[in-house]
């Protein structure tokens, strides 16, 4: 999902565990600031070792899931939860921390799909013996049916890759009235063939999305399917009181022999919703009774950092995987002052990114972003910025560019942020004042934030906006954020900068048409720095997702594909008998 919730953007902490675990087993005092700045456990560490089968895993959350219906589920952590526990997809990500987690494994399908016609046609074969929770077989036409459902105007909110990629999908409004798509064929119960309108090299990744999971037509309940998705995964829903509690129990018809990814350790998974964020942190830190077998769903609060970092035994229970999203300061290129290239470039130097880091929870939970594409899409390391490496900016160069842009004394400008980002906006206000730019902050409720900045006529000069790739490919990032053709007059999202550049758009089309995924990846990275020189946005932060686990939890790690949420395929308990507490 691209839109991250920014309510608690400041949260954080984390990763400290790594630092702790690896670096300093014996030293009590924290070393120099270099040492302390190292984000801890970030990548590659599994908390608690290998789990044992059985017990009840508790998930503590401050909110409800948006949509569990696989046609509508497009929020990263919820996609993780849904596809790992309730519904299987054609392919999925490996259950491994770090880079290996971005690799694919076949799931319902026997392989990663077979392209033909230059990548325009993709064929998948289902494994034999796949069953739903009631023991009936999973058939290729059920996958087709769910893809079709995602076109229905009442089942909205889900990933729109099917709409973008499938041939002849224009004007299609779903299967509820009995119409079907011709571009998906199911010659038999185990074969499904997708015809695309253009070559898509990374279609194997596309089918990790919940859109490509099976829903039998007989179970269709329209909008209320959301309440009880029919399970093809290792668990089924026992009860679901929205906003309060969801209980999952084992699906007896899920056959581990058909599943190389999911381990399904716990017998039951209980999600408690609507709790108070700070109380969740306190409960998991204390790890008393059933809370020892609990994991956090929502980010740890910034205020809890001081309760966690100084205590090694708690700190090692903190996961802080990179979210893989990039936080940006979007500059409205459609009108003055930021239709002026020099003034936009001046902002790259004027912004104090280290102040952003502090306002968002500190270096333990945030890295300074040097480009738009997150490290996960650029081979694991940060790209070099054409604007130098000083995280506090460069006031002199900013001043020079302002002078070249005709505003040597600075100017007045506006920013709109959602209330959760207010501290960060204030930090921006401070840092821009160093070069004479006077920033007026308008903060709006999270519920109307995207509508406010998406109204192109009344959009502010600046906005803080983030984007997360849907899967590790530049094609799920740059075209959403910087393609001028996606701009809409109202409800404009993604390209908040309203950046229109013919050359960039042409290059995007060329890369999208590449049939070789590897050279496409390289081309996206090159394009990233091309766009960065035109400066439609200032990259600010790469955040980490801080999540605590109780001390009876094992096999926990933040999965890179889902913004650092725990991989629910392999999480479990050290001692299942303790979980009954």
């Amino acid at each position, binding site marked *: 999902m691209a839109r991250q919730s920014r309510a608690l953007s400041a949260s*954080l902490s984390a990763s400290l565990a790594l630092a702790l675990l690896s670096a300093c087993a014996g030293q009590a005092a924290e070393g120099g600031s270099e040492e302390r700045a190292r984000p801890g456990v970030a990548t590659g560490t599994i908390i608690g070792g290998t789990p044992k089968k059985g017990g009840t895993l508790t998930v503590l959350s401050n909110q409800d899931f948006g949509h569990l219906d696989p046609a509508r589920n497009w929020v990263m952590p919820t996609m993780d939860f849904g596809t790992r526990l309730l519904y299987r997809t054609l392919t999925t990500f490996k259950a491994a921390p770090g880079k290996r987690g971005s690799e694919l494994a076949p799931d319902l399908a026997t392989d990663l799909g077979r392209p033909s016609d230059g990548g325009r046609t993709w064929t998948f074969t289902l494994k034999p013996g796949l069953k739903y929770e009631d023991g009936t077989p999973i058939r290729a036409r059920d996958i087709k049916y769910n893809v079709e459902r995602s076109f229905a105007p009442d089942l909205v909110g889900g990933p729109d890759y099917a709409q973008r990629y499938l041939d002849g999908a224009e004007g299609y409004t779903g299967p509820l009235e009995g119409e079907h798509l011709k571009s998906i064929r199911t010659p038999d119960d185990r074969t499904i063939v997708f015809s695309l309108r253009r070559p898509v090299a990374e279609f194997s990744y596309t089918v990790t999305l919940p859109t490509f999971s099976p829903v039998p037509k007989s179970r269709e309940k329209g909008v209320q399917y959301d309440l009880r998705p029919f399970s093809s995964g290792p668990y089924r829903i026992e009860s679901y009181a929205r906003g309060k509690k969801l209980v999952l129990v084992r699906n007896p018809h899920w056959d581990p022999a058909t599943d190389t990814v999911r381990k399904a350790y716990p017998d039951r998974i209980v999600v408690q919703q609507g709790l108070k964020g700070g109380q969740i942190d306190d409960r998991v830190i204390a790890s008393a009774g059933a809370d020892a077998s609990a994991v956090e769903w929502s980010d740890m*609060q910034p205020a*809890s950092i001081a*309760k966690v970092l*100084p205590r090694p035994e708690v700190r090692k229970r903190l996961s802080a995987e990179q979210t893989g999203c990039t936080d940006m300061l979007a500059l409205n290129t459609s009108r003055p002052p930021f239709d002026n290239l020099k003034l936009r470039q001046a902002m790259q130097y004027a912004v104090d990114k280290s102040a952003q880091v502090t306002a968002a929870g500190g270096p333990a*939970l945030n890295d300074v972003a040097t480009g738009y594409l997150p490290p996960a899409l650029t081979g694991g390391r940060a790209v070099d910025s054409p604007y130098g490496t000083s995280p506090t900016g460069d006031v002199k160069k900013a001043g020079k560019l302002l002078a070249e842009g005709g505003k040597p004394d600075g100017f007045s400008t506006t920013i709109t942020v959602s209330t959760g980002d*207010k*501290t960060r906006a204030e930090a921006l206000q401070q840092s821009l004042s160093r070069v004479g730019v006077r920033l007026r902050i308008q903060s709006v*409720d999270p519920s109307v934030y995207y509508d406010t900045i998406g109204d192109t006529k009344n959009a502010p000069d600046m906005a803080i906006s983030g984007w997360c790739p849907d899967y590790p490919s530049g094609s799920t990032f740059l075209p959403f954020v910087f393609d001028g053709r996606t701009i809409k007059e109202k409800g404009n999202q993604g390209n908040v900068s309203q950046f229109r550049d013919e050359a960039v758009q042409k290059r995007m089309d060329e890369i999208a048409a590449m049939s070789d995924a590897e050279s496409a990846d390289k081309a996206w990275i090159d394009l990233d720095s091309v766009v960065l020189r035109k400066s439609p946005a200032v990259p600010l932060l790469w955040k980490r997702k801080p999540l605590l686990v109780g001390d009876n939890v094992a096999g926990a790690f933040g999965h890179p594909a889902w913004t650092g949420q725990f991989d629910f395929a392999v999480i479990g308990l050290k001692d299942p008998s303790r979980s009954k507490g």
Partner: protein
Amino acid sequence: MTITPNTTARTGPSALPEHPLRAALRKLWGDRGSRAALIAVALLVLVALTAPLLSRLGGWSPTAFDSSAIDPYLGGMPRGPLGGVSAEHWLGVEPATGRDLFARVVHGARVSLLIAFAATAIVVVAGTAAGIAAGYFGGRVDTVLSRLMDLTMSFPSLIFMIAVMSVAQDVNRVVLMTAVIGVFGWPGIARVVRGETLSLRHREYVEAARVAGSGSWRILTREILPNISGPVIAYTTLLIPGMISTEAALSFLGVGVRPPTSSWGQMIAEAVTYYETDPMYFLVPSTFLFVAVLAFTVLGDALRDILDPRGGRS
């Protein structure tokens, strides 16, 4: 329906030789509790009035970041004991930004008291006007106004205020909050005033004025208004703590003033998750809010006892 109009006879205008206001003040000063409340209120008002001066004295503006006062590696916790209390930051600093708490809390006093006073003014003016009109003219005017009072009182006011505040985006938050709080407050005082006016309407001196040819306006302002001013003043003072609390509650829920403006409720809302790790941050704005509400309540109680010894209690 809450207020039983005070129909017992009241001895007309006070027969005391001393000016009634001065007498009231003297009585207030005579009691230890209300004297303390009076001093606290005066101090708070003074703080609010001189906030910019005070924060300059402290050396920090309420919006200036001080990154040296916080430890970024601990999520921006203040350095030093007691939430970073030092010669430089008298009451410590705000976590994550290092902004000066003293400067923020005195500026917060400004916003909190300004909104409370302004909303009270709206309530008192609107409520008194409506109450007098309803009580004096009676008949259809009374019916319409009383219905309006019933309707306003039936609104789930807090829920409604939250909804309105979160809907309105592009407006002056302070003005809006004042208006919204004011809109729901007027029926209470209107009922008191209406009851008082009813009991005065047929009093001899009013009738005398009418017979002498005085117009309604003159009777209302010269004869009725002065005679209900006692209860109105007492009621007004008792309204203020409620207004302060309401403003704080709305800001606490995140629908109050916009950043970087501070108000007590907004500060408490942000500090509430830090109650354990940085108790000072939580206690400073809470203490100010507590003292303000307490002082105005005590003062209001005392004034009511003096000015309106038998008046409506609700």
